[in-house]
């Protein structure tokens, strides 16, 4: 019954989506307010309908209806509640439905919040968002339906179908396979939805950009109207990437946080172009520059969101993060092609009217430096794209399967990230319009000199790698420049307004949240950079087989293997846990407990590292193997990851900074209220 209701709601949602598109096009062409209202109502109705579908699937997951293929594949009786929630996006079909729901939710909010202000653009905004939604709804309904059930045919075969066909019996399994053991981590409850929020969030700026192109509006209204959408999408995408990294660090058990896996890069690519766009849109807002470029960037970002979804789900790429191979690849390919070509044609059509008469007055002006910032982001993106697509083209043209792994990306993108950090250190001191090298030099030399204390301190502490020292200097430069500029502004404001510095700080930040939110984001990025430099340049590892009570000295720590306990059938798994006492000198630092879980149903092993984490370093231990009967002991892989905690701290700072930047300035809020009140 539940599935019948869900399918009914899905079909109605599909029909209504088509209706919203058709009436949206008509309303845009003939300007009929009635038709437009019909389109709007249709678009609004999709969200509650899909919420109903989602609730139906959740009921099936919670109540353990294992005759449904999706429920069988992603849950089992003993699974904790939060993992049953995570099962909603733990498989291909559910995650596609979740995508649709988020997309319809974003469209709903945009239509409710921005209807009156952007009425002229709305018909095309509805058409674009609903067209995207239609594509995903078609996938859910006809290709990857989460409401398929298992049937047993006359010859004993098990088939998955929506309805019984001919002589079949409905299967009735008593338990399911359970969620993939690798996904049974609290991070997985929030990582996919966060990432999807980031992905789907970019639909709204894209829809506005396309609507502006179709309407022939050459102003920057679409950018201003969707600034917060872009920031929110970027925030969620950033959070999704970081949560994914944390999950990899905690669950995949290889000592790192980022493996330059194709699926990881697929999520990174829209983040790179999205970040370029967030910088570039300021050039249009402040200086009326690079209108073509901004539209191209948002088109690219949206297409990369779809490309990433396609690559993850088509089976084209092999990855620990990818969904199983599916038949939806060709459909995705057609959709991306249509979206990309249609957007490009629109951009070319409006090319001449988007020209800017405003000049860049100096290479060293903020807009001049932003141009290079954008090109660096695009260069990193193109290199990532090359690495991701190369195995596909290699197999296509030569029949040879190849892997493009971390060494390629590190060597190719490392220097570019270094240059981006350098720009991050310089740009805050440049001014819009006329800014000369002389002025820039006079501003930068003080923080630059102070920043040299960072690598010097690192060298004194024993750092001997030039790359690491250089990275630490760049981190120091950005921190010094940001704090220097912040402190100087606070000082000026405090003197001019005769107020204490903390009041000036508060006033300055609250009056210009965008600028200072950006500074906080930069600080977050450099703290993350510090963590990345720590693990990339200074990580050390060793492997050792230890008998009980045997010790090993590593990275200044003394580790003593105390023993191992094996617990059978804990939540459907055998859990082996090793106990290692950690000490430094005479100080006992506690016990680290790496784990090795074997899941019976999935017949899969998960290696969970034991971790001791401080601001200075992480001691990360993996239980590789053990001898349960003999006294040979156990084999451990031990990683020393300096500074990695700063990666997680930096990501929190980045998110706070984004929230500060998104928060409305009080003056603008007052102005908006005044406009509303007709003052």
């Amino acid at each position, binding site marked *: 019954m539940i599935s019948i209701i869900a399918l009914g709601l899905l079909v109605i949602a599909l029909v209504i989506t088509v209706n919203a598109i058709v009436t949206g096009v008509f309303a845009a062409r003939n300007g009929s307010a009635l038709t437009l209202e019909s389109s709007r109502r249709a678009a609004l109705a999709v969200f509650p309908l899909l919420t109903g579908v989602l609730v139906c699937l959740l009921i099936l997951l919670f109540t353990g209806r294992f005759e449904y293929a999706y429920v069988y594949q992603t849950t089992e009786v003993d699974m904790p509640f939060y993992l049953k929630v995570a099962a909603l996006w733990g498989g291909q079909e559910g995650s596609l439905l979740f995508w649709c729901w988020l997309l319809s939710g974003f469209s709903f909010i945009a239509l409710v919040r921005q209807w009156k202000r952007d009425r002229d653009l709305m018909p095309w905004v509805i058409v674009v968002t609903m067209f995207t939604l239609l594509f995903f709804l078609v996938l859910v309904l006809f290709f990857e339906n989460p409401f398929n059930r298992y049937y047993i045919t006359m010859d004993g075969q098990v088939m998955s179908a929506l309805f019984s066909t001919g002589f079949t019996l409905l299967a009735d399994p008593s338990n399911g396979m359970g969620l993939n053991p690798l996904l049974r981590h609290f991070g997985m409850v929030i990582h996919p939805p966060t990432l999807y929020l980031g992905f789907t969030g970019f639909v709204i700026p894209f829809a506005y950009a396309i609507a502006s192109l179709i309407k022939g509006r050459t102003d920057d209204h679409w950018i201003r109207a969707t600034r917060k959408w872009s920031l929110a999408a970027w925030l969620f995408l950033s959070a999704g990437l970081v949560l994914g990294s944390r999950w990899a660090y905690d669950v995949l*058990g*290889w000592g790192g946080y980022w*493996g330059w896996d*194709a699926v990881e890069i697929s999520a990174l690519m829209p983040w790179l172009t999205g970040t370029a766009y967030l910088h570039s849109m300021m050039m249009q807002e*402040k200086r*009326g520059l690079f209108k073509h470029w901004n539209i191209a960037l948002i088109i690219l970002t949206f297409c990369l969101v779809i490309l990433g979804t396609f690559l993850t789900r088509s089976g084209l790429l*092999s*990855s620990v993060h990818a969904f199983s191979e599916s038949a939806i690849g060709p459909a995705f390919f057609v959709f991306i092609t249509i979206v990309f070509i249609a957007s490009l044609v629109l951009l070319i059509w409006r090319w001449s009217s988007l020209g800017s008469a*405003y*000049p*860049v*007055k*100096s*290479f*060293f002006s903020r807009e001049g430096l932003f141009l290079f910032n954008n090109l660096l982001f695009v*260069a990193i993106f*193109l*290199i990532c794209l*090359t690495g991701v697509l*190369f195995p596909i083209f290699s197999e296509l*043209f030569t029949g*040879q*399967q*190849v*892997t*493009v*792994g971390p*060494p*390629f990306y*590190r*060597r190719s993108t490392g*220097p*570019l990230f*270094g*240059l981006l950090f*350098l720009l991050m250190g*310089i740009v805050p001191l440049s001014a819009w*319009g006329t800014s*000369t*090298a*002389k002025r*820039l030099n006079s501003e930068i030399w003080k923080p630059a000199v102070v920043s040299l204390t960072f690598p010097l301190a690192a060298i004194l502490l024993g750092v001997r790698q*030039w*790359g690491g020292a*250089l990275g630490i200097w760049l981190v120091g430069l950005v921190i010094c420049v940001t704090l220097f500029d912040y402190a*100087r502004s606070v000082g000026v404001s405090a*003197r*001019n307004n005769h107020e204490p510095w903390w009041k000036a700080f508060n006033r*300055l930040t609250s*009056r*210009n949240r965008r*600028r200072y939110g950006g500074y906080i984001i930069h600080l977050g990025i450099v703290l993350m950079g510090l963590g990345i430099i720590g693990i990339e340049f200074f990580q050390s*590892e*060793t*492997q050792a*087989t230890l008998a009980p009570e045997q010790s090993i000295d590593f990275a200044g720590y003394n580790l003593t293997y105390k023993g191992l306990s094996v617990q059978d059938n804990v939540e459907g798994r055998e859990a082996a846990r090793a106990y290692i006492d950690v000490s430094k000198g005479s100080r006992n630092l506690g016990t680290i407990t790496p784990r090795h879980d074997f899941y019976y149903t999935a017949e899969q092993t998960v*290696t969970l590292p034991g971790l001791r984490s401080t601001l200075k370093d992480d001691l990360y231990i993996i239980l590789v*193997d053990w001898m349960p009967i003999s006294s040979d002991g156990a084999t451990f*892989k031990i990683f020393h990851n300096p500074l990695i905690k700063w990666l997680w701290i930096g990501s929190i700072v980045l998110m706070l900074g984004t929230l500060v930047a998104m928060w409305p*300035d009080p003056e603008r809020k007052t102005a908006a209220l005044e406009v509303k009140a007709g003052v």
Partner: protein
Amino acid sequence: MNKHSKLIGILFGLVLIACLPSVVLAQDATPISPVTDDLVNAVAHDLYCPVCENIPLDVCPTQACAQWRALIREKLELGWSTSQINDFFAEQYGEKVLSVPSARGFNWALYILPPVIIISLISIGVLVAYLLVRRFKQKPGSIPQAPTSVTTEVLDEIEQDLQKER
């Protein structure tokens, strides 16, 4: 170009030059005796499990990968170098086991494209910036001023500039 432009140029140049060696340095190792787990893992780190999904051989927990690591140990004990072991694995299980394809034939594209991308984009950036700046320098009066809404940010900047003048 005045001396200030040069200084900033030098700053950029230094970072670029300092970063370059990471692009060209090849990683190779010569056999060291005795063969430790760490040495085996160092070689296995740049090889990929031929069976599992994109998992480096040094951390793959499957039995097959444990056997391949044992094979690496054997080869190292025989005095093979890292590149010889890599070639052996590539020959046995295909190029897919290498973390980066070997530089030959179609694979050259992977080595050539990143520098081409970087050089092209930097050239485009310099050209665009040059053309835009030249347009301003040729006819500064005839070009409309960019819109500058008087936001608090602008006011703050003006405030700072004034402060410096004082």
